């Protein structure tokens, strides 16, 4: 930008690169998580049922919709198609999951969270921390996208 100092311009460019990289990483993580759930629907059904929160009709719907929601929003985020809407959806998924994790911890259920990308992980503080970090990342990326469209002060 013409009026910007060189230092600020470099920092801003670095921030854009970082945001771009993190957007790709978040999108990839969601696509990967969705693909796994889509191709292993019975394992995912067992994971959802272990939470003992939903009646069977809703378990079936969750198992059908969540993998596609993760795959579609992750893929569109990677491609840069409607990124703000994808980031909103990702935040919604993460908030719902955070509530479920908290309820499960309060109930004292010792179950696999179904959220470990590369290894199995129990419901616990680590899973909650991971969810909160992802939520903060998605919120930050959303805010950056919005800021770009707001008129400069």
């Amino acid at each position, binding site marked *: 930008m013409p009026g910007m100092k060189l230092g600020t311009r470099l920092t801003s460019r670095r921030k854009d690169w970082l945001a771009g990289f993190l957007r790709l990483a978040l999108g990839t993580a969601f696509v990967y998580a969705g693909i796994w759930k889509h191709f292993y629907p019975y394992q995912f*059904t067992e994971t959802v049922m272990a939470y003992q929160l939903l009646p069977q009709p809703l378990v*079936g719907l969750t198992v*059908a919709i969540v993998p*596609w*929601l993760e*795959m*579609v929003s992750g893929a569109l985020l990677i491609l840069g198609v409607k990124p*703000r809407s994808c980031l909103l959806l990702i935040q919604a998924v993460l908030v719902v999951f955070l509530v479920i994790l908290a309820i499960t911890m309060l109930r004292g259920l010792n179950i696999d969270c179904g959220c470990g990308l590369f290894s199995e992980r129990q419901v616990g503080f680590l899973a909650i921390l991971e969810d909160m970090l992802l939520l903060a990342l998605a919120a930050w990326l959303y805010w950056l996208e919005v800021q770009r469209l707001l008129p400069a002060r």
Partner: protein
Amino acid sequence: MTLLRRLLAQDLAWGIFILALALGLGLQSHWALVRSGFKGELASRLDEWREQYRQAEFGEIKTVNLEQAYALHRQGQALFIDARPRSEFQELHIAGAINLTTEALQGYGVQHLSGMDRQRQIVVYCGQQNCDASLEVAELLQAQGFSQVMAFTGGFRAWDEAGYPVDIAP
């Protein structure tokens, strides 16, 4: 502020569209599962599927039920291996059992077992009916030359509910 509100409304509208797309794709690809859920048949479908999966993946592993496992425990000859995570083992486990998870066995566990009699009867168990850790550990042990390995698929829950002997931390 008005611009922000307009942006948010636009983002939400597209978000709902993407959600509807996911709903359509999900219903189309997993309709059988969704229907089972509405009929209340998911649990039995899962049992069938688990049986098929285990047959395909662990068909070679001998399994024992609760009574057979208890009989082996009473005879006192068999080694009981708890394949659950260490924290769960420490909380409560079958009396006399040792803790050996899949991860541990893939790491240092093999050396740990090097002096052990390969003909000894071994019963492996995990948490409950739907966990596969017992079968995975049994398979790894069998690959290490242990010939009398069995998986107790009812798991610790069935044992505990039956009121059979348990221990706290070793």
